[in-house]
């Protein structure tokens, strides 16, 4: 790396720590941070100040209803075998099994056990994973106001998809995530819905090595084994 390249990014350290870069700039800066020792040192030095900022906020008490609602969801998801139980190895095995049974049985099984991401989501590690080689990709979409980012760790051991500005998938339907290899689509093991504000997210478990792209379609609740419509959103990984 040349000093000129370093200087181009060095002035972004403080802006990055304050969250003042755009998503694209932040992703570019994170890629630089992974390679640049000087910027990493600068980042480590200044982060002490940035991380102190929330401690200056006037302390307020969160409403009890928030705690109750949050814990209702968490307890439901923590139940063994619940729909939201989604350890990657488990889902990977499930997906392998789904390939061996008939589509009808598989769809019912999928409805029972596949991961469902809802409002709020999963992929929030960007702030915590600076400089780890994670890559963030922007999605192409056919939806007028929709946008999405896909975050993939360096070893491609899964990914997280965060969507914004998405319309509800419709009654009895969900968004389903697909992994594309060449022109073949396989279920990623992730279904998701979006909240009132159009945001949502999905964890994509399993290894993404050899995957050329990720796509999203609207499918019937419970998901399907093959896409039944053209993707509303695609991310090219190759």
């Amino acid at each position, binding site marked *: 790396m040349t000093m000129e390249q370093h200087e181009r990014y060095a002035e*972004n350290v*403080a802006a990055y720590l304050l969250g*003042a870069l755009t998503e694209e700039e932040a992703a570019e800066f994170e890629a630089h941070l992974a390679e640049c020792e000087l910027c990493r040192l600068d980042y480590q030095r200044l982060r002490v100040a940035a991380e102190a900022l929330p401690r200056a906020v006037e*302390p307020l008490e*969160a409403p009890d209803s928030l705690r109750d609602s949050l814990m209702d969801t968490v307890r439901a998801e923590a139940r063994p075998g619940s729909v939201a139980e989604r350890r990657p190895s488990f889902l990977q095995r499930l997906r392998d099994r789904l390939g061996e049974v008939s589509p009808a049985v598989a769809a019912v099984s999928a409805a029972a056990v596949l991961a469902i991401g809802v409002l709020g989501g999963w992929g*929030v590690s960007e702030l915590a994973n600076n400089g780890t080689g994670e890559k963030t990709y922007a999605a192409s979409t056919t939806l007028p106001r929709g946008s999405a980012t896909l975050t993939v760790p360096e070893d491609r051991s899964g990914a997280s998809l965060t969507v914004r500005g998405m319309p509800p998938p419709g009654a009895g339907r969900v968004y389903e995530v697909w992994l594309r290899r060449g022109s073949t689509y396989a279920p990623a093991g992730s279904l998701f819905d979006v909240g009132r504000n159009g945001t949502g997210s999905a964890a994509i478990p399993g290894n993404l090595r050899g995957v050329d792209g990720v796509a999203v379609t609207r499918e019937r609740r419970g998901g399907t084994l093959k896409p039944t419509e053209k993707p509303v959103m695609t991310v090219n990984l190759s």
Partner: protein
Amino acid sequence: MPRTKELQRLADEELMQLVQDGDPRAFELLYDRHGDAAFSLAYRMVGDRVAAEDITQEAFLSIWRSRERYQRERGSVRTWVLGIVHHRGIDALRRNLVHQRRRASAEGIEERHEAPERTDAEALRRAEAKTVHAALETLPDDQSQVIELAYFGGFTHIQIAEMLAMPVGTVKGRMRLGLEKMRRELAGGVA
């Protein structure tokens, strides 16, 4: 499985190990320790209780669902949690859902419920808040302004440059100088 009293004695980082194993009681305790701070930060950013509740709920749900991703060596649980809340807050602000409503002024736009000082840990945090406040107050206005607009306002450096009618480089420079000075103040004046 540890009893609740045993859980309460655990440090955040130890509690997080149980959360990573999928223990909802450990997660509940984690929320009890950091939920108020998370809500306070969200409220400070968006200036609206309902929006702040949404952000806090989204942040904690994402923490629960991405619990495998916490790495102890990267910093404290509290910093990690507040980082995620901040990220969600910025996301909400940039979607422009709450910009027009943000900035709860010192007079108090809405009804507030101040957190009672219940434990030694909270008393310590209030003392810590005073230290950070003091460090912020040492900054020249032009530096604290850009930090405020970026960190709590969710504005990008480009938007701030437009608002203040100054070059982007100047905005970034002020951000850097401000954080540098704060860092020195927090370190007790040590460079």
